[in-house]
């Protein structure tokens, strides 16, 4: 299904399987609330890592630490790309420059821009033309815009959003907005893509499309993916490894099958309030099979 990308989508220099991201003893609290407690985890190049856990477990907080929006009180986030970088010391735009892209749980698109402009805005870190050349739209500035337009069109093809490319994103359906947001992140040519509940609120068909796109991005382009998702079916289907958080702590880790059978995880979810229904389903499934 490789759709003839004219540009490299993944900007990582590592080989598949190499250690890419290592989180050490991460600790984050807001006043009295502990969002993350002694979290350790590793991500390897070209892996799909799912992070699951009930509401308020600290999943989004973890992504926010990685992208530099939250500042953990303790711990390090070591990222490998032309050397080792501690992300906890960098500002969000610097982390973006290192090739870490993300989507948000509550879509954060540039509402008044078209789909195309959102994706082109995602190319920001790769554009070079200076201010004067840009204002004159002269030579290199115009060539650069055309070059990135081609690149962005490849992403539009990949995500099957050709028909809406000139629409303003604020007017699009929720499902399409989620797709555009992922496109915008891809425009950054990421080495790691962080996805915060990319399928929330979608119907089965939309979820299936989204899962297909994620697999495409991962398999065809080798982009590593950290995926937060509540739908256990999807998580078990597409992820290589799963990390389970509960009350800010990592309570389980392993392949989807290992996690499914982990008694601590099952216990955590049985004790959970019943409103988190996908988990209940998952646990029930497990016990049926077990």
């Amino acid at each position, binding site marked *: 299904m490789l759709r003839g990308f004219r540009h490299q989508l993944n900007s990582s220099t590592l080989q598949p399987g190499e250690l890419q991201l290592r989180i050490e003893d991460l600790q984050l609290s807001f006043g009295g609330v502990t969002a993350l407690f002694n979290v350790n985890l590793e991500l390897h190049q070209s892996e799909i890592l799912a992070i699951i856990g009930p509401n308020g477990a600290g999943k989004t907080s973890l992504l926010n630490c990685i992208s530099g*929006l939250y500042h953990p009180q303790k711990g390090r986030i070591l990222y490998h790309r032309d050397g080792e970088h501690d992300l906890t010391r960098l500002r*969000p735009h610097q982390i973006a420059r290192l090739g870490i892209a993300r989507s948000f749980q509550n879509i954060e*698109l540039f509402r*008044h821009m078209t789909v195309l402009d959102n994706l082109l805005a995602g190319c920001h870190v790769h554009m070079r033309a200076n*201010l004067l050349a840009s204002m004159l739209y002269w030579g290199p500035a115009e060539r650069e815009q055309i070059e990135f337009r081609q690149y962005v069109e490849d992403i539009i093809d990949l995500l099957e959003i050709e028909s809406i490319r000139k629409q303003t994103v604020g007017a699009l359906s929720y499902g399409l907005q989620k797709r555009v947001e992922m496109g915008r992140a891809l425009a950054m040519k990421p080495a790691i893509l962080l996805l915060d509940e990319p399928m929330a609120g979608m119907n089965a068909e939309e979820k299936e499309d989204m899962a297909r796109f994620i697999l495409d991005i991962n398999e065809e382009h080798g982009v590593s993916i950290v995926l937060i998702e509540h739908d256990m079916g999807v998580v078990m289907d597409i992820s290589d490894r799963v990390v389970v958080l509960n009350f800010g702590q990592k309570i389980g880790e392993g392949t989807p099958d290992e996690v499914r059978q982990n008694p601590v995880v099952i216990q955590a979810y049985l004790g959970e309030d019943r409103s988190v229904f996908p988990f209940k389903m998952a646990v029930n499934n497990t016990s049926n099979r077990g």
Partner: protein
Amino acid sequence: MESGIFHTTYQSDMSLRRTHAQKIRIILFLLFMLAFPFFANRYYLTLANQVGIATIGAIGLNILVGYTGQISLGQGGFMAVGAYAAGIMTARMGLPWWASTLAACLVTALVGAIFGIPSLRLKGLYLAIATLAAQEIILWTVTHWDAVTGGVDALVVPNPTLFGIQLNTDFNFYWVIWALAGLTAILTINLFRTRFGRAFIAIRDQDIAAEVMGVDLFRYKLLAFAVSSFFVGLAGALTAHYRSIVTWERFTVDVSVLYLAMIIIGGLGSVTGSFFGATFMTLLPAILTNLGRALKTSLPFIDSIIPFVQQATFGLVIILFLVLEPEGLNKIWRNIKDYFRLWPFSY
């Protein structure tokens, strides 16, 4: 949706004027602007020149407020910086007007960036107050730094010349002002086709997402202040040379509010809207003055209340506009275009 237009290359799809209708509109507008000075009398030329300068200032302010979402009440102050910098360099240092104008733009850009620093922490109304402080600080400096600005006294600026021609008439100045207004418009439109402009809009729409996409908020907010102030400084420098005299009264906070009204009425985040707003806010008081004069001759007994009626009408028209079309004149213009695009099949 326009039918029958199909762009075969990204280059043509991304070019500025993409349809015949657009090209025809531009050509008609240019022809009108070229012919206008030859038919207009001195009064209309003066108005046209005022509109031209206001257009430049409004585009400048719109870059900051409309496109980048950083509200500013410092417009008058920044125009003062441009006007005084240009006036001083031309009058006291003997620089040619174009050199002092360019230098004044750069000085204003720098001053704008400095007063933009609070925007890194403040948003919305708080930023409005911070920029209001900038306005007051600048005017205070201008009126108290006697040695440089001449204080509250007027600064007299000699008439500029271009290619040996004295720019001492409205007719001659018209070409300079509108050439620069056109240039300002083109540079700004181009800016928003590239990463800089997209970063500005991104900051307005969703600053956290912009940051996570790699936009350095610190740099780009200050850059927005600088680019905006550059053009506002140009409007100030042109005012200085056009009026031949610089006084602080021309740059009070009223001016800041007037320009905000221009871009809101014209259309936030739009170059065409800036032009519409500048035209509207310059012509409306002129029309009201003329009406007042006409009334005064026929109804001499209401002479004393005419100024109040003018003020009230001015306010009323603005309110009506905002209520009826909150998205500004530019929206009305778009609706008209949409209507004619499908004409005669519009229904």
